[in-house]
Each structure stands twice: as structure tokens, then as C-alpha cells.
């Protein structure tokens, strides 16, 4: 544990040392991955120059733009990419991206990043990381983007069906009405057939987030660990029950064993993230009670675990003058008047 914490400290130190560059690099990478997923709707495959160009564009947007602009750009680019594969699919994506923006994206732009993260992590079969993180750090505001992501994964599957049925190469102006109706049929019937599963899975995720948030905001010891554990158990049991009742979504349908592995790995990742946030020493918890004229205060103080860096002993500059040893002290203290 100590080695791990020292490693953590050195990583944080390295990050902070080059903070502007590190932040830009992380944002670029996140944008690159998101737009790579978006570009997968193009007919060129994942390994092509055009796909790479879209992904790089996403990275650049992520570095320079605000979350709301990033979300809107992702929606627009997704519509364009889907249009290149099938015009009807492109229109469907544009309509639903617009509805999503109207009903959520513009109200909670920052929380919408959870939506993007969950859709991307679904590709890695680790979508549970997002509800676990939302339970610890975001709270109930994270419920809607997480549920929207569950819908988006099923919606993406419907869009792929439309792309297969109505490819761009077979598009004709004379058949536009008939093709639009076929796309509408795929879209509506697809959404209706998945709606029960989406609602059931969303309910499980929402319960997990609320329970985890409630535990995390209570004054108990190891609240984050308990929050992650309880959320993980709720997610696993809930998803398994949904699978048994056939109320499941593609976003979480990995089979019982797959779900177990995914939840456990997600919990481990979430735990590591909480350690990077802060490590508390619960053995040295102090409880104090005092009062003033209006209130009685019950204070619980939990110290953070901090490891001192292995500083090399500094060489003192020694001057010998007139037979007396004068030591010039080296000081780390800089003039820090602006802090």
C-alpha cells in the first residue's frame, strides 16, 4: 500500500508539474477516443485516413472547446458520419441528437460528459465504471446521462440495422419516401422493443447511484469504499435479475459471468480513482464535540495519509572564514507573496 501511495504521489506530482500540457493531452485523448467511436458509423472502417481525421478533429475540439460545444459537435459529426453510410440513418441520428440536446444536453452540459464516457466504456465492456463514479462524485444529477447512455447503446444498434437495410449506395431520390418509411419502422419498432429493457436497466442504475450517493454523503467510516461496494452489488444483482426476466439492454448484456467480471473490474478501477482523490487514515479518527450559543457541533476529523517524499539531503555550502565555520542555509521557501 505504501509503495502504491508513493507511486500515486509521484504520478500526481508529474501531472501537476506539467499541468497545462498534461490536461491538454488527457482532453485530446478523450476527444480522440469519443470521435473514433463516432467515426465508426462511417463506411470506411476504423483503420482509414478519414476515420483518423475525424478522431483528430474530436481531440482538437476537446482541447479547445467547452463541454457543451464538445457534446453538440459530437452530435453533429455523428449525424454526418451516419449520413455517409445511410441518409435515413443520418436523419434519425440528427433528430434524436436534437431531442437529447433539447431535453438534457443544454441544461446539464458537464454531466453530459458521463453519457459520452459510458458509451465509450461500453466498447471496452466496462460501462459500470460510470454509474459507480457517478454515485461517488456526481450524485442524482448523474442518473439522467447514465440512463440516456443505456438508450444510446440500443439506439446505435437500431441505427446500424437501418444502415444495413438502407445503405447510401442504394439511395435514390424516387424511393426517398418509401425508404424514409422503412427507416421510421425500424426506428419506432426498435425503440419500442427495447424500451422495457432500457427502463428496467435504467432503474437499476438509478437505484445504485442513489444508494451509493446516500452512503457517500453519510458520516460513516470508509464511505467511498462502502458506496462502491453497495453500488457494485446492486448493479450485479439488478442486471442479473433483469436478464432473467428478459428486461435487458445491450448496454449491459454480457451474460452473468461477464457482468460479474465487468462489475468487479469497474469497482477496482473506481477504487483506484478514489485513492487518487484522497486516502484517509480511519485509525486516527478524532471525534470532537463543542458548542457555541446557537449550535452544538459534532466534528469528526479523519486525517489524510500523506507520505513524505524521499528528499535527498541537501548539501550545505560551507565557508571557512577566519577560522570560524559559517553555514549558509539553503531554503526551499520562495517568495510566495502572490499565493
Amino acid at each position, binding site marked *: 500500500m505504501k509503495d502504491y501511495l508513493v507511486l500515486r504521489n509521484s504520478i500526481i506530482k508529474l501531472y501537476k508539474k506539467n499541468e497545462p500540457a498534461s490536461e491538454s493531452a488527457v482532453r485530446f485523448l478523450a476527444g480522440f477516443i469519443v470521435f473514433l467511436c463516432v467515426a465508426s458509423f462511417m463506411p470506411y472502417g476504423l483503420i482509414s485516413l478519414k476515420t483518423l481525421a475525424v478522431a483528430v478533429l474530436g481531440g482538437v475540439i476537446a482541447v479547445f472547446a467547452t463541454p457543451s460545444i464538445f457534446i453538440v459537435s459530437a452530435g453533429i459529426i455523428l449525424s454526418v458520419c451516419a449520413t455517409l453510410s445511410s441518409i435515413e440513418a443520418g436523419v434519425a441520428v440528427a433528430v434524436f441528437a436534437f431531442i437529447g440536446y433539447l*431535453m438534457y444536453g443544454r441544461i446539464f452540459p458537464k454531466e453530459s460528459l458521463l453519457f459520452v464516457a459510458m458509451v465509450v466504456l461500453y466498447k471496452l465492456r466496462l460501462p459500470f465504471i460510470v454509474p459507480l463514479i457517478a454515485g461517488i462524485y456526481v450524485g442524482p444529477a448523474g442518473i439522467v446521462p447514465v440512463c440516456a447512455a443505456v438508450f444510446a447503446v440500443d439506439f446505435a444498434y437500431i441505427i446500424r440495422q437501418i444502415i444495413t437495410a438502407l445503405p447510401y449506395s442504394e439511395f435514390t431520390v424516387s424511393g426517398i419516401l418509401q425508404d424514409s418509411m422503412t427507416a*421510421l419502422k425500424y426506428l419506432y419498432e426498435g425503440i419500442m422493443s427495447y424500451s422495457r429493457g432500457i427502463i428496467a436497466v435504467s432503474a437499476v442504475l438509478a437505484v445504485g447511484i442513489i444508494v451509493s450517493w446516500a452512503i457517500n454523503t453519510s458520516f460513516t467510516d470508509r464511505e467511498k469504499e462502502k458506496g462502491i461496494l453497495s453500488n457494485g452489488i446492486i448493479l450485479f444483482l439488478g442486471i442479473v435479475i433483469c436478464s432473467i426476466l428478459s428486461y435487458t439492454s445491450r448496454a449491459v448484456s454480457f451474460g452473468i459471468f461477464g457482468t460479474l467480471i465487468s462489475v468487479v473490474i469497474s469497482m477496482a478501477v473506481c477504487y483506484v480513482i478514489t485513492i487518487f482523490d484522497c486516502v484517509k487514515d480511519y485509525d486516527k479518527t478524532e471525534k470532537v464535540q463543542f458548542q457555541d450559543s446557537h449550535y452544538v457541533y459534532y466534528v469528526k476529523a479523519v486525517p489524510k495519509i500523506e507520505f513524505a517524499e524521499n528528499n535527498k539531503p541537501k548539501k550545505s555550502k560551507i565557508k571557512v572564514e577566519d577560522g570560524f565555520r559559517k553555514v549558509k542555509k539553503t531554503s526551499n521557501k520562495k517568495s510566495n507573496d502572490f499565493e
Partner: protein
Amino acid sequence: MEDLKKVRTMIHLAIYDKRYGEKDRRIVSHYRHGYVSKKNMSVRAGIILGFLIWECVKLLYYMMFMDSVFLSMLTKEYAIKEAVKLILLLVVFSVFSTVKYKRQYDTAQKRTDEYERRFDKLCQYEDNTPERTV
């Protein structure tokens, strides 16, 4: 030393102006209730528009593929059922947006008050500084 304090205050003011200034001033130029109401109206308009688009998709589907059901759907009961759904959505989103925009207004107000406090302090430094003669 006095000059250093002045410079420090000016830095804080400049940082605020760069990061939040314009946005905060736009927010606090309204009354709290007015700002929240205005934002809520905008959210509700968005919800109604989104809901109507979805209803259009739904009705178009029934009109094209289930025309017998479509005709029987167009009743008062259907309209009431959909209206109830819309009202429910509006209530939920109004709660969310009220909480969010009230919090946003309070934060902006707090930051603006702090800015004004620092600005007054800067003015005091300016008043106390003796005029330099060339």
C-alpha cells in the same frame, strides 16, 4: 508593501474578469426569481419541442403502418394521456432546472460580491496613494 497588496488585488480582479466576469454580470443583471423563471421557460420550451418531435415520429409510424390503430388513437383519452405524460416531464425538469439555476445564480452573486469588495479595496489603495510628482 502597499503597492504589492494593490498589485495582488488587481491580479484577483483581472483573473475574475477573464474567467467569470462577463457571464456572471449577465446572470446578476436579472433578479434571482426573474433569472430562474426565464431559464425555466427556456427549458420547458425545449421539453415541449422534444416531446412534440417524438409524438410526430410516433403518429407518423401509426399513420403509415397501422392506419386502423391510428384512426382509433385520435381520441380525447389519447390526448389526455399524452398531456399527462408531458406535464409529468415538465414538472420533473422544472424541479431539476430550478435547483440548478438557483445554485448558478447564487454562485454568480457570491463571486460578484467578492469582486466588488476587492474593487472597493483597490479604490481605497488608490485614494491613499500619494500623487507622484515628476
